[in-house]
């Protein structure tokens, strides 16, 4: 739906009749008893505002979105909010939700032999036609297995009965779905807004939603599973793993992937890009959870994609091309969302909201039109503009913590990872933030980055001390600098995907050395044990042989691996060993350029050649400027996605829709920067994002009580990113 439509929020009503397949919901007493014995039963009860309950008999194709993490995390995911509305807007289709049950409910379900149910109508997962699985994080894979098992489905595509739902995965982890390909019937690459409808159309056309009796009285569907999958594989962006077979050379290295006999499938599957991001907003009637969740606020995605080109960042490569919401569309949508949800806070989300061309005017206008609402900016970058912006929209708010992510301690290493920020800039930001009332700064760093030396590691403490000194000048002994250290994980579809992770010994030595230098009042160092990062890297860069490992680990009891209290690295090591594999080989080996990659047949738009060139630039310590303003690096996205890169008449480059695409009149967006914009003179240099932002924020009357920025970066990671398509 568009923003204009929702002048009055009315929860959809339930239709009354129909002849479609409608198994009964689970008995309510059984559900009540199970929920009476678990913590936070509100997670599993449904009944939220804007959740949609439809009459099953009146609806043909039924989706259930299964999110393999707790309700509080999954409900914060914007992709889920979007796709839920895209499907439920069609009267003849429905989408329900299901989240990974916590271990206490898992025990209750297994004891009572109750299947895992959907929140809306409390049907077992196996009663649906399609399970849409959101995979944003490798450490949720075992939760997916639990959900399939508890939902009553066959675990793998080979074990599933003809009548079982299709399991279709999406999200950023599916850029390499090979380690769990056995458990997935199909994978949707890229953004889902258009593709879920195409998949639904195809399945309905084939009769997938119809149930018929088979020769021995068993339930089947209107079309055979294998035939349905072959048909789905013809939809752009859909990858059906079972139609390909991998080859390995004798020493176990991946050699290539071949289509199975007779399969008419593409050699390379390209990710989808939503066609109308600039002008249409999906996800207006966002579900308002009854219990507190991680991002308990309305969300409006103002920009998708990012062209800063940080070399470790998967999302920055995955969600290209960069698209910005037209300001009038954004403002109208924000009003509609606030009205439809009753939320007191709206987040303007994107991978880097301060880069959104219209962030100032959109935030100001939203504030003027909805003075009661707080506005928050979750993902921000290190520069003066960010500080001023946050200060401006939260003048009376808490000044408890401000978060920056310099990612690396030394200038040299920040150039290697292409995080274009200098020590001086960090100090300048700190100066601004401390002077505007914040007394505590949180800085995020990674350890184990490619080419990192001990000197780079120790530079972390240098920059922290420098920032602390600035803070002391403003706040004396009250000033605090908290450094959060995580272990670098090479992600597929980034220039760093060929780079191996440091060994745990190296990581621990680096952290120990850093720890020695980080004593003192006002300095705080936090870091996570590197073992879950090894697993993340191994699963992220893995091949199909890891399917057996995942299954073994799950059988040994692995679940909620992202949660420290449940994670056991020993369990995973055993599982690897029993399959004759080594997680270190997957995580820590530098992959030669000429070696075929197990995920090489899946593309999100940027080409492998571009990534390789950028990796070479990284090795020689050269930065690449933000191509929104700087030169073109020929990343391949325009060719793969049908979007076109155009150089503006007066300098800056930008991505514009191709002229033949239909655009609603008056909404066509094209950036025309203000004359004399200082960014143009410095385009291409590292100073691009520096202190010279043209808007005078301090002169505006923006007011918002709680921008609530502290700790957000870590939560974004935990929730698998906010802007999944």
């Amino acid at each position: 739906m568009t923003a204009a439509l929702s002048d009055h929020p009315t929860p959809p009503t339930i239709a009354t009749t129909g002849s479609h397949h409608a198994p009964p919901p689970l008995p309510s007493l059984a559900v009540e008893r199970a929920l009476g014995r678990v913590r936070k039963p509100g997670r599993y009860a449904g009944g939220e505002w804007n959740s949609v309950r439809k009459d099953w008999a009146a609806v043909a194709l039924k989706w259930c979105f299964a999110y393999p993490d707790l309700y509080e995390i999954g409900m914060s995911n914007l992709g889920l909010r979007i796709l839920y509305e895209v499907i439920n807007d069609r009267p003849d289709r429905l989408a329900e939700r299901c989240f990974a049950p916590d271990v206490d409910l898992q025990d209750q379900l297994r004891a009572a032999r109750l299947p895992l149910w959907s929140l809306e109508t409390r049907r077992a997962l196996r009663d649906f036609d399609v399970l849409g699985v959101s995979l944003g994080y490798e450490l949720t894979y075992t939760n997916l297995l639990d959900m399939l098992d508890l939902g009553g489905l066959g675990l793998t595509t080979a074990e599933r009965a003809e009548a079982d739902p299709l399991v279709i995965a999406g999200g950023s982890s599916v850029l390499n779905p090979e380690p769990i390909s056995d458990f997935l019937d199909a994978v949707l690459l890229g953004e889902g807004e258009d593709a879920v409808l195409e998949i639904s159309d195809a399945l309905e056309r084939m009769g997938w939603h119809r149930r018929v009796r088979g020769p021995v009285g068993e339930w089947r569907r209107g079309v055979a599973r294998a035939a349905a999958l072959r048909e789905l594989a013809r939809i752009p962006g859909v990858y059906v793993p079972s139609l390909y077979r991998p080859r390995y050379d004798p020493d176990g290295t991946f050699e290539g992937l071949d289509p199975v006999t007779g399969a008419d499938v593409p050699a390379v599957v390209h990710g989808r890009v939503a066609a109308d991001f600039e002008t249409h907003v999906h996800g207006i009637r966002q579900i308002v959870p009854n219990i507190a969740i991680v991002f308990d606020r309305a969300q409006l995605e103002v920009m998708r994609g990012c062209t800063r080109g940080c070399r470790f960042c998967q999302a920055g490569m995955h969600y290209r091309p960069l698209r910005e919401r037209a300001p009038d569309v954004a403002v109208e949508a924000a009003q509609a969302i606030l009205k439809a949800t009753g939320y007191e806070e709206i987040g303007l989300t994107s991978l880097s909201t301060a880069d959104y061309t219209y962030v100032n005017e959109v935030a100001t206008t939203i504030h003027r039109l909805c003075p009661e609402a707080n506005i928050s900016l979750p993902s921000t970058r290190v520069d003066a503009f960010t500080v001023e912006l946050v200060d401006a929209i939260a003048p009376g708010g808490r000044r408890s913590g401000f978060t920056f992510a310099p990612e690396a301690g030394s200038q040299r290493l920040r150039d290697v990872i292409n995080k274009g920020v200098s020590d001086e800039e960090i100090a300048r930001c700190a100066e601004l933030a401390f002077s505007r009332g914040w007394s505590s700064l949180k800085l995020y760093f990674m350890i184990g980055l490619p080419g990192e030396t001990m000197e780079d590691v120790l530079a972390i403490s240098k920059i922290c001390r420098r920032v602390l000194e600035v803070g002391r000048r403003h706040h004396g002994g009250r000033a605090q600098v908290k450094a959060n250290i995580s272990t670098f994980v090479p992600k597929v579809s980034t220039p760093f995907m060929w780079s191996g992770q440091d060994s745990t010994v190296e990581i621990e030595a680096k952290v120990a050395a850093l720890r020695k230098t980080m004593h003192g009042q006002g300095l705080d160092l936090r870091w996570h044990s590197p073992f879950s990062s090894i697993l993340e890297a191994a699963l992220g860069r893995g091949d199909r042989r890891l399917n057996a490992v995942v299954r073994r680990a799950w059988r040994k009891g692995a679940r909620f691996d992202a949660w420290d209290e449940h994670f056991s690295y020993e369990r995973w090591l055993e599982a690897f060993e029993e399959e004759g594999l080594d997680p270190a080989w997957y995580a820590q080996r530098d992959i030669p350029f000429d070696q075929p990659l197990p995920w090489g047949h899946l593309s999100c738009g940027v080409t492998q050649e571009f990534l390789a060139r950028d990796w070479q630039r990284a090795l020689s310590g050269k930065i690449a400027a933000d191509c929104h303003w700087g030169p073109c690096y020929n990343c391949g996205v325009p060719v793969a996605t049908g979007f076109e890169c155009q150089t503006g008449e007066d300098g800056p480059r930008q991505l514009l829709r191709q002229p033949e695409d239909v655009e609603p009149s008056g909404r066509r967006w094209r950036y025309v920067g203000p004359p004399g914009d200082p960014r143009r003179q410095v385009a291409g240099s590292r100073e691009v994002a520096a202190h010279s932002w043209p808007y005078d924020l301090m002169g505006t009357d923006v007011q918002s009580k709680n921008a609530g920025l502290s700790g957000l970066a870590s939560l974004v990671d935990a929730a698998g990113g906010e802007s999944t398509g």
Partner: protein
Amino acid sequence: MSESKQRWRLVFARDDEARFLSHLDAVHLWERAFRRGEIPVATSEGFSPRPRLIFAAPLPLGMLAEHDLADLFLAERLTHPDLRSRLADGMPRGYRLIDLHDEWVGGPALATRLVAADYRLTLLGVSPDRLAPAAGALLAAASLPREKRREKRVTAYDLRPLLLDLQVREDEVAAGAADGVGVPAAGLWMRLRNSQEMGSGRAEEVVAALADELGLATAAAVREEETPQTETPKDERRPAEARALTPEAQDAVAPVVEMVRSVRERLWLAEELALRDAEGRPAAPSRLPSRV
């Protein structure tokens, strides 16, 4: 703080959809409902002002309600039909507005007028025949010493003066429940005192007292304040595909008295229900004509 210009008494019911909300969750839910309905709610004093919606008594997580009360203070006067339609626009799922009437803004706080509450529930794991003598014993007792736990503090108190009436019933819900789960079931009805001095009676405490009387355990009831982490032992092994249970889970499903389908039937205000003093037996309810 905004000045309260009008005070509305909300009479509402809570249905299954909102059953598993804690009191705090419910408060947030109502606040959003007021924003959706664009209702000019007066706010409280303080650093973070909250909308002035005062519940007569928090509704425990897991419990339904048929006649609960709350006072809503408005910063601007609204007519009855206007407020009713604005509430209807954004009413939280699982809550039903039964009645709405204008109260004097300066009147006494709702909670101070509350004297009693009626509860109806089903007990699984015990038959009506077995339960009836236990209920009789509770009513015949002079005192019922019990312990109240709040976080780590334990205080002793007497449940007996809070228990005004207790009846065992063979209702249809109980019979249906018994069929469904293969254990005996009995219906239970009780009237519990709400008192400024003595505190308020809790249905689950009465059930626990009954279970003690019968020598049975109670199933772990859901409590809002509980947030323990049930750690899974690291060495837990899940046999291949066998889906075995942890010992804790087996305990959790062992035969016990279990409270289900619990409903708060009605909250009683002093002017609606005259109670005799603390020694126990309730006066015949003087059901005043409702102001509905």
